């Protein structure tokens, strides 16, 4: 019994060769008290480590062209990928290009996700581009963006 569970555990560890990096990268850094200001250019180079960012139709973003308020803007990102051990999306990064801290979320995925998808709701300080960067397992960085117009609401 003991041995079986050990083996099972070992098997799981072996299958888990693809581990999410535990080291805090520059892209993940934050100040404890905040606010975490970071410009778009700085954030992009922290994520890519200086590698080229390639605009790609493989990265799809669903976000409203016109947001009825800046407090809750729905954003969904899907990346075309087989999500296999050999070919998968390591991370999806969501950036709001003109927020004080442009970084919204860094999502580290594994093949266990089965599909490279992240859906959330973000705050936008005003009309701006929302950018998604996909970090692929082959080390390339693909991206897409969408302009979201933030309207000023009516009564209260």
């Amino acid at each position, binding site marked *: 019994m003991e041995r079986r569970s050990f083996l099972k555990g070992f098997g799981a560890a072996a299958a888990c060769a693809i581990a999410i990096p535990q080291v805090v990268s520059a892209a993940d850094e934050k100040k404890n008290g905040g606010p975490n200001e970071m410009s778009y250019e700085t954030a992009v180079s922290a994520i890519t480590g200086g590698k080229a960012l390639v605009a790609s139709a493989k990265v799809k973003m*669903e*976000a*409203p*062209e*016109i*947001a*009825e*308020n800046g*407090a*809750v803007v*729905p954003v969904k990102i899907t990346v075309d990928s087989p999500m296999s051990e050999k070919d998968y999306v390591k991370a999806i990064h969501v950036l709001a290009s003109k927020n004080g801290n442009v970084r919204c979320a860094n999502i580290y995925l594994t093949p266990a996700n089965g599909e490279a998808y992240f859906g959330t*709701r973000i705050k936008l300080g005003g009309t701006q581009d929302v950018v998604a960067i996909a970090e692929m397992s082959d080390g390339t960085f693909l991206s897409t963006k969408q302009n979201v*117009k933030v*309207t*000023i*609401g*009516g*009564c*209260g």
Partner: protein
Amino acid sequence: MRTLSISAALVCLALLSSVHAEEKLSMSDADKAMYAELLENNPAEMEVGEGEQLFNSLIGSAAYAKMLGVKEKDLPKTIAGFPRYVEPAKKVVTLSQSLQMALANQGKEVSKLESPEIIKMTAYIKSLANGQKTSIDVKANAHMKEMMALGQQVFEERRGGRGLSCNNCHSADIVGQRLRMQPLPDLGAKVTAAAGTWPAYRMTQGQMVTLDKRMQQCMENALLAKIPLGSREMVALEVYVTNKTKGNAIQIPGLKR
């Protein structure tokens, strides 16, 4: 002649730009669908869950039904008919007020109408009537008739520095018009489903808000003195506004801008 053609051109330009602006102002159907989809994950669901815990620990549906003089299984139907005349109070009360009464009956501390406890419990018990239709009966008795008449008066009364009434911005006449960039809702419209969807989560405030509180927020922005929560006038206004959407489905919690 030349001036004329220039001004004609200018008018043309103005027309074009206004058409163009109109396009930019309105959300596409795809955009609207994205917002409609937000209802699937309404943050207020968590608050309704808290309301359920609070209600069950502080009041309980048996005690609540007994206070209203109805069977427990008839609670959803009864709740769908609020605001209504409640015998122990000898007056027309809102759902939130009925919870205050129930708290008092149970010997519990009576929370204020604007307290998170009352808001969450109101949303929870109203959610028991989800799927039912708003069934307020403004002709049920003299009390309801009186409150309906008062509600209409409050709704139509122009007051404040700008002489505005609720009716100025929320009648069938204003459909299609905008305040800043927001389409103004006709509170009687089926699509608005106003009364049946409050308490609702307000995205701009990140919290759940009751119908009477929402009306206060509206008054504040229209520079009208706020009618106090729980006052006869506020209850009457809720009666009047709720009656506008009688027959619409109750869907709690709602999700609003």
